[in-house]
């Protein structure tokens, strides 16, 4: 099946984009609305409004109370939810293919939420509880500290959930203004994948969303400055110390995206250098690498947690491995192994409408159009040893990074 046969694109007069993928051999279907807004599109005093708004979209529309929304999801969807990130808010449901029209109708209705005042304070309590929950999780605390320090003075610096004080002070009217500015149809994308008829999806979208008025396009994002430094957050009640080395990395749309992914896997994925040279020396039960690819910037994070008496040794081991990546080329076999595994994982994802929904969302948001599994595979196959060496020349991970330490120790000393 060619790209043209697999994907179908349509834009309604009001600017709502519809992207559909037909998945042969699949019986189910998944549908989701991408709102191209997230925590980095907030102003500091409204930190957390995108995420709180995501909760409120489940709380009532002109047609449905929150109870009816919940009941209608449970009648049709096998799986449904929503999430908010720094750059996006996404609402989705995974259903039997015959129910996809009902799912689109329900999600469409939620995109025109009334943000009912009567529910606002009650849901605020839930969000504040979610913030409390995040403070009991070491990795969550470290993630928030990372953004606060590395992206200081930039919109990426505050937590996605917001702060107790900003969420606590947020009013329904402030949220409504944000909603009006960010949930216009020309800032939304309807994505559908699975056993579906694209023409029918467009008909559904036109029926449920066609009358929404076009609105403003949101504020332009500015890329953050690159920072280096050290930050420590001592929290004595935790048992383990979490160490993060953070380095500048390419954005999600950068041509080096797949090369960066491969390098991340070689350094800190399964059967990686971190696994054999750090985890399997008994130094850390969890040492790995993650990429944080945003639309205009990115970070490569080297994570490791350990007992407090081993954190100095762990930090050195992580730095040693990072240094090796920069000073000598990776092995051809290491690259090939990453490609082999990616081939299998793409085949696995190809049978899951929900996974395809997320991949299409990434592609549409960052590249303007989706890629087939074959196109994704070709991008992975194009990664080379020399390409990875070039990557580390451009994005060094042996200097100019940010060092973070969270846990019971006040270590290392910060000048």
């Amino acid at each position, binding site marked *: 099946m060619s790209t043209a046969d697999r994907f179908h694109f349509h834009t309604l007069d009001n600017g709502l984009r519809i992207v559909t993928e037909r998945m042969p051999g699949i019986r189910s279907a998944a549908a989701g609305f991408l709102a191209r807004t997230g925590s980095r599109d907030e102003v500091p005093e409204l930190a957390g409004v995108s995420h709180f708004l995501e909760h409120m979209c489940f709380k009532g529309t002109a047609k449905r109370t929150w109870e009816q929304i919940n009941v209608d999801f449970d009648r049709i969807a096998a799986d449904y939810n929503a999430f908010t990130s720094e750059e996006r808010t996404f609402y989705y449901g995974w*259903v039997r293919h015959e129910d996809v029209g009902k799912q689109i109708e329900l999600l469409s209705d939620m995109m025109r939420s009334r943000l009912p005042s009567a529910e606002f304070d009650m849901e605020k309590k839930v969000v504040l*509880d979610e913030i409390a*929950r995040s403070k009991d999780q070491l990795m969550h605390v470290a993630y928030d500290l990372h953004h606060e320090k590395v992206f200081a003075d930039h919109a990426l610096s505050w937590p996605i959930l917001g702060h107790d004080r900003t969420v606590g002070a947020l009013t329904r009217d402030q949220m409504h203004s944000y909603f009006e500015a960010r949930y216009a149809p020309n800032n939304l994308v309807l994505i559908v994948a699975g056993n579906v008829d694209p023409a029918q999806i467009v008909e559904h979208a036109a029926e449920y969303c066609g009358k929404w008025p076009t609105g403003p396009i949101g504020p332009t994002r500015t890329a953050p400055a690159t920072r280096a430094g050290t930050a420590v957050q001592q929290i004595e009640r935790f048992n383990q110390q979490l160490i993060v080395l953070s380095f500048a990395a390419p954005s999600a749309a950068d041509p080096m995206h797949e090369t960066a992914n491969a390098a991340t896997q070689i350094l800190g994925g399964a059967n990686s250098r971190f696994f054999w040279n750090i985890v399997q020396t008994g130094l850390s039960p969890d040492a790995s690498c993650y990429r944080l690819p945003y639309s205009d910037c990115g970070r490569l994070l080297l994570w490791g947690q350990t007992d407090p008496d081993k954190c100095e040794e762990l930090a050195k081991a992580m730095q040693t491995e990072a240094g090796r990546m920069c000073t000598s080329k990776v092995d051809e076999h290491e690259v090939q192994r990453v490609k082999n*595994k990616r081939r299998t994982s793409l085949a696995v994802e190809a049978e899951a*409408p929900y996974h395809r929904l997320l991949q299409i969302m990434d592609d549409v948001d960052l590249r303007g159009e989706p890629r087939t599994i074959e196109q994704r595979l070709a991008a992975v196959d194009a990664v080379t040893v020399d390409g990875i060496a070039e990557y580390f020349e451009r994005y060094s991970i042996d200097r100019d990074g940010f060092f973070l330490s969270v846990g019971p120790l006040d270590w290392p000393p910060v000048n």
Partner: protein
Amino acid sequence: MDRTAHLNLDCGLELGVVPLPEAQVVAVELRVLAGAADEPAEKLGLARLIQETINKGTEQREGRALLDAFDELGASVGSWAGREATGFSFVCLPEFVERAVELHAEFLRRPTFPEDAVQTALALAEQEMAALEDDPPSLADKLISRQGFGPVLGRHPLGERETLARIGRDDLVEHWRRTFATGRMQVTAAGPVEPDAVAAMIERHLAGFGDGERTGRERFEFSFAPARSHHSKELEQEQIAICFPSAAVTDADFPVERVLLGVLSGGMSARLFTEVREKQGLAYDVHAMNDNPRGWGMIFVSASCKPDRAETTFRTLLREIDRLSEDLTEDELDRARSRIIAREETLADLTRSRRSALSYDLFHRGHPLSLEERIEQIRGVTADDLSRYLAGHPRDRLSILTLGPHELTDV
């Protein structure tokens, strides 16, 4: 048409295969029927240590070379050690299945358990225990499981610090010799494969591993005792967990219980979410689930909330457990059934899910259930069934646990 096959091989191994001709990948699990409950009480943690070290060296190659060999196939491999079993699974493209089975057979049959790998696994197990204590929901799960299921079925796979201190390489070797054999194995596969071909492949690589005698399929003894405990810990949230006995997977009422759990906690319109989160804003996270050792069952109800809301949250959880036998509507019942069936039907698109469902059935029931049978069971559940189930499973004996800064006063 469902062509799921269930074969008992001459080598003593039980095999289940779901042929899915259209699938692009093959998913396989090799399950050894030995877990934490099979360990000597003074050496808890053995099963997991074996799981962690069994692929770190074989008579033919070192651990790194073994993982490299899997990577050459592009196979996604995983393993786990649980209460009554230890599992080794992989997903790969169809052309690599036999090689992946061969590599699994190599480390399952001829591991060397290198001393340095054993010492590393012991050191990491200690650290993982410390990490577990930094994860309040997981710590609460561990504590309520121990309290509800007791000293054998309630064991945590990580073991205990004092039992890990008694374990050495020889213990791993001895326990592996005692528990790893085809008579104690169930293998399940799903994907574009044929049952006879998979059976022949398994025989080629695993025949002769042990004497073929069938063992490891009996349920462990267990008796429930109501209990209440508080574990004081400085946290932002209070973790609340309640459990009580329920149906075993093989009970005729098990599908009824699945629907009942749907009414209680199956989605956003279910009772717990509605009463705890939506109406009172008490907690972000509230849920109920069942946990089934072979031949037994337990329902767990959990929530985490700010400490000053713990008393109200707890009372609301109790009220909802109690209220299950009151004012059940046809609409609730219909919704719970619909959601379970929708989930069964959509997950059926995934090769891994088909394999996983088959593994579950072989482990608990000793035979597979087709997707259609599974759905029919749920569709057939009536309001009368729920009433009968609730009358036969009184919820008056509870095990209650809290973890956090606030000890409940109103229990």
